[in-house]
Structures are given as structure tokens and as C-alpha cells.
């Protein structure tokens, strides 16, 4: 259980730092990739919470497909903020 606590705290801190970074980083494309990373870490947390179904769904949909959707939007708008 100590190992689980360490893993969840490490993943959680990483996710929170990445979430703030996704909102303040300059380049939009970096922000999109960082949000994909947050989704992937969330699927690790789902696995720690004994929810393998949700973890597999989050990994395939949240991390892959929504990243593609945002990349399309960035390609259509272009430029940075």
C-alpha cells in the first residue's frame, strides 16, 4: 500500500504540474501534447483505482483521438496566441 500511495502521489503531482503547464506554455502545439500526457496519466490513475475498463477507454479515446482532434483545430487556425 505504501508503494501505491507513492505511485499515486507521484502521478498526481506530475499531472497537476503538467495541467498548469498546458495552460501557461507559449506554443499551442506543446499545450496539446501536454494535455495528451495528462490524459495518459489519468488512465494510470484509473488503473490504480481498480477501473481497467475506464483506463483502456481513457487511453484510447482521451489520449489518442482527442489529441488528433485538437491538432486538426490547430492546423486550421494556425499561429500562436
Amino acid at each position, binding site marked *: 500500500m505504501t508503494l501505491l500511495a507513492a505511485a499515486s502521489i507521484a502521478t498526481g503531482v506530475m499531472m497537476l504540474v503538467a495541467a498548469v503547464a498546458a495552460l501557461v506554455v507559449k506554443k499551442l502545439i506543446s499545450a496539446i501534447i501536454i494535455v495528451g500526457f495528462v490524459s495518459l496519466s489519468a488512465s494510470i490513475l484509473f488503473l490504480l483505482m481498480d477501473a481497467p*475498463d475506464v*483506463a483502456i*477507454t481513457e487511453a484510447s479515446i482521451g489520449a489518442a*483521438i482527442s489529441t*488528433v*482532434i485538437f491538432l486538426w483545430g490547430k492546423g*486550421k487556425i494556425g499561429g500562436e496566441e
Partner: protein
Amino acid sequence: MIRTIVGLIIVLALSVVVISSVPDYSLPSGLQGVGQDYTERGVNDTGSVNLVTAVVVAYRGLDTLGEVVVLFSASTAVVLVLTLVPMGANPTPSSSIVAFTSGVLPGSIVLFGIYIITHGHLSPGGGFPGGAVVASAFLLVMLGSNKIPGKSKLLASIESLAGVTFGLLGFWGMMMFGQFLNNMVLPAGSPGKLFSAGIIPLISLVIGAKVASELSGVFSSYRKAGGDE
């Protein structure tokens, strides 16, 4: 700057409210109510080993039908908006290595997706993740090929057929037992086998086809509107 600070203040106030609304910091001791009920009688009721799939497809199957309708309307809105406002497509051609690999790989990816869909009542998985995996194979085909997809009647017909089949499977239970989506129209079989759990594998297949065709429709309309620049 002032906007950032005001936003920070709002968020901090909200966090204080949420934290103070948690009454006591102790671990819950056990399940109550409907969750306890599902874990106790889920396998006997439905014959599905994976209880999450049992809840999604059998106990809350009507909610899943509503969810599929939400997904359908969202994807229809995307396709409609992108059809009404053409943006001009200029895809960059892909090199021959990428084109070859994107022709080889999708077969195994689709096979994996179908495995996830059909084993949803035995292991983690089911219609939603399997459909997403199949849609990602479709995405790979589209990104690799140099053609812009034309009007595909096939996607729309798969989508409509899956929706109609979902409804018909539900009405089958209504005619036999007077209950929408009753699971007992097919024998429950022995839990843990591939052909078991009543109509749960069929409904999983329908949900997988629906999710895959709708996400593929979204990708295909994105591709038609351009965007690889």
C-alpha cells in the same frame, strides 16, 4: 492580468467551499445500496463476468441508448457544420513508406478492436474502447492515403443499421418479457465462456459499430475540410 487574478480568486473560493463540504476524512467501510446489489447478483442476473459491462449494457442499457443518441447528434453536428462551410482541402502527400505501412497495419488494429469488443463481458473492454480502436485504424488509413474521401454511404448505413439493431434488440425483450432490453431472451450460458451472457455480446457489437462509424465520420469530414498543414 486583472482577469487572471479574478479567475484565481473565484477558483480558490470554490475550492474552499468544496473542501469544507467534505464532512469527515475517513475511509468508507463498504458498498451500500445499488452498488452492493449489483456486485452480489450481477453474475447470476446477466451471466457477464465483467460487471462494468453488465451495468453498461444490461442494467443501464436504456441510458446507453440515450448516450449513443448524444454521440450521434454531436457527430452529425460536426459533419453538418463542416459540410455547410467548406474550407478548402490541401493535404500534403505522404511518402511511399508511410503509404505502404498504413496499408499493412490497419488489419491487425481492426482485429484487436474486434477482440476488445467481443470479449467485453469477459475481460476489460467492450463497445466503447473497441469502437475507438477501430476508428483509429480508419484514421490511420485516411492519414496514409493521398486521396480525399468522397461521400461514403457505407459509414452512414453502418451507423443507421447499428442504431436500428439496438432498438430492435431492446424491443425483442419487450415482446418476450414485457421489459425493454431484457437480457434473458438468449440463454445466459455459463459465465466465463465467449458465447454466454445473453444479448450482452450482441449489444456490445452494436455499440462498437456505432462508436466506430461515428468517430470515423467525424475524422472523414475533418479530412475533407483539410487540416494537415
